[in-house]
């Protein structure tokens, strides 16, 4: 325990010594101030003392507390914490392992009565300290803003701490492995960014193919309904034949989208679920903290492509249902398995290497 505390203390001192930690924290403070500066009333949005009258964003559509929760869960966390702060976090922590295994430094650590695997894992967890401290401060400030400005003290806000740290850990485990393999801070950082970009690409591909599949499912259902109705009404073949052809085309398109979605899903299944992990925050706040807004404006919208027969709302509901059908095990469990495999390999490598 003395050793673990010493390593944690050293990591804290390291963070303290790094300017980037304080810069990130200061930027987080600015984001929170910006969040607090925003307000909503029956006329529209307010920014500080300025009033912006908006017909679609006002308290008739969403209560004040929901407004802040949506800003927190849909904007601030995904864009600030899960992108910019995560990048700054990676920049700050990517040197942990290359520095640790550099000559002179590793000798000092390995010559102590601590096993290599424990040393590696403790250093790994101290690397997560950066994000943990950042998110904890951020979530606490957000909790205060939502409480003071929104009038609701929402403890579920704090679920963002483990979720964002978890998300960061997916990338950091890869960064740690690259740091061990390349011994270079720059190389490990760039390779991690590349890996993140790859995950992003796969996520986008899977999302697009899922959207295509969903749209075609809805289209197929409509085509089937139209055909059934036509047959039931006893329409002549001139009417039913085009409907049958459309049905066949929809089936063909759907099969094609399903195939590509299956490939995207298969690749994604093996990778950490960065997007879904962050989306869990929205899902949790929606389920546990009444975050859902009465958003009727989309109901009349029509979906692009696919002959514009499908309502946007129906499409979004179907997509949300599909995403929500992916359970915690698939999102977090499979990601943790990925992380575990990477860490086990890195740990094995670290334990066997000569320095």
């Amino acid at each position, binding site marked *: 325990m*003395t050793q673990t505390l010493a390593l944690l*203390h*050293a990591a804290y*001192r390291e963070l303290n010594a790094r300017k980037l930690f304080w810069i990130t924290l200061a930027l987080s403070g600015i984001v929170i101030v910006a969040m607090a500066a925003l307000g909503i009333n029956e006329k529209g949005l307010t920014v500080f003392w300025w009033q912006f009258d908006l017909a679609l964003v006002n308290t008739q559509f969403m209560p004040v507390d929901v407004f802040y929760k949506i800003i927190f869960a849909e904007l601030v966390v995904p864009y600030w914490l899960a992108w910019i702060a995560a990048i700054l976090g990676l920049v700050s922590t990517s040197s942990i392992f290359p520095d640790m295994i550099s000559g002179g*430094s590793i*000798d000092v650590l390995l010559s*102590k009565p601590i096993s290599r695997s424990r040393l590696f894992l403790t250093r790994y967890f101290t690397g997560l300290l950066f994000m943990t401290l950042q998110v904890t401060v951020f979530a606490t400030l957000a909790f205060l803003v939502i409480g003071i400005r929104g009038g609701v003290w929402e403890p579920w806000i704090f679920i963002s701490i483990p979720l964002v740290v978890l998300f960061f850990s997916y990338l950091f485990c890869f960064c740690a492995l690259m740091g061990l393999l390349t011994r270079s801070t720059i190389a490990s950082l760039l390779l991690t960014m590349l890996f993140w970009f790859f995950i992003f690409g796969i996520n986008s591909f899977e999302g697009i193919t899922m959207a295509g599949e969903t749209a075609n499912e809805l289209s197929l259902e409509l085509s089937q309904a139209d055909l059934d109705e036509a047959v039931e009404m006893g329409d002549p073949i001139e009417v039913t034949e085009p409907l049958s052809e459309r049905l066949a085309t929809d089936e063909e398109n759907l099969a094609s989208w399903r195939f590509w979605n299956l490939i995207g899903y298969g690749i994604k299944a093996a990778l950490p679920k960065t997007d879904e992990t962050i989306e869990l925050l929205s899902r949790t706040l929606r389920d546990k903290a009444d975050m859902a807004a009465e958003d009727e404006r989309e109901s009349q919208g029509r979906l692009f492509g696919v002959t514009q027969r499908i309502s946007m709302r129906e499409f979004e509901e179907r997509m949300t249902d599909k995403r929500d059908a992916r359970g915690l095990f698939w999102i977090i469990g499979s990601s943790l398995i990925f992380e575990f495999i990477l860490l086990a390999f890195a740990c094995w490598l670290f334990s066997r290497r000569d320095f």
Partner: protein
Amino acid sequence: MADAPTIDLQEVSKTYRGRVHALRSVSLQVHPGEIFGLLGPNGAGKSTLVKIMMTVVRPTSAVGTVLGRPVGHKPTLARVGYLPEHHRFPQWLTGRQAIDFAGAMCKIPRGQRIRRTAELLDVVNMTDWASRRLGTYSKGMQQRIGLATSLINDPELVLLDEPTDGVDPVGRREIREVLVRLRDEGKSVLVNSHILSELELFCSRVAILVQGTVVRQGSVESLTRESCRYEITVDGTVDQIAPLSGLGSVTTESLEGTAVRLTLQTRDPSDVQPIIDELRRNEFTIRQVAPTRDSLEELFMSSVTDPATGQTLQPGAGRSGRTHVTEFSGEATSEAPPPPPPPPSSSSASGETEPGGAS
């Protein structure tokens, strides 16, 4: 010396990638209450050997014990102090924090650490600098803090890799005093160093490692015993000395001016008397008669010199197929046969084995 060895290594070998033989069946013993010097040219395997004992490098094969436990036994390291050659502590730590961190990693309770840190800062004369960051320290100051970190756990065995590197003469003396104090407390100290004159001052025993093999091991006195000789300096020239019939197996060498040095390989002063008589009989002025023996540096140089060619061996670990080491392999004991004669002007040739780079 009757106690069990602190370090008792038998057949320690390390081969990198199956080709580079950093260590070849190294055997070595260090006893309680002695300062042991590990010498060798760059790349001889000294640091690798120390790193194996400290579990930084995994041996290809190793039989032996450190403090009575098998090599690689992690908990034993709590009783060992180690100062790596190019140690690097986090530069944002202060001197005090670095020593405290090293103590915590050795599982020393906080109260004890605080007390011991203050003591050690005093020992290495760094109390006034204790609250400044390591990044602001000079090389010598970092070395002092490094020494303190290696002693925080009050170790029974201390392994120091170039401890006086970058330290000024005053600091060197202080470090030397610390090592002698440790020895007097019954602790074992193993020192890797290139500064042979310094090692000669305080090492009880030494081992010379060349291309991964221990070619000499023993006390400096025992290792240089075979080189004991008497040197007689007289006025005159070699030509004037040569005709004398009663000088026996004396070798002569011209010195600057009109002086000659006669050397007789013997430890017995009675062997010298007839030569003095002969010189006096022929009215040579005797300036000096002195018993002498090889210095550690001369011993070292003879160990790293190929007896066949008279050339110093190339630095670096032995690779498969290189044969230099086998010529020395039979000499790796404390009762080593006399070393091959040093090459001409050997005493000034030490620079030839120092091409730079860490060993």
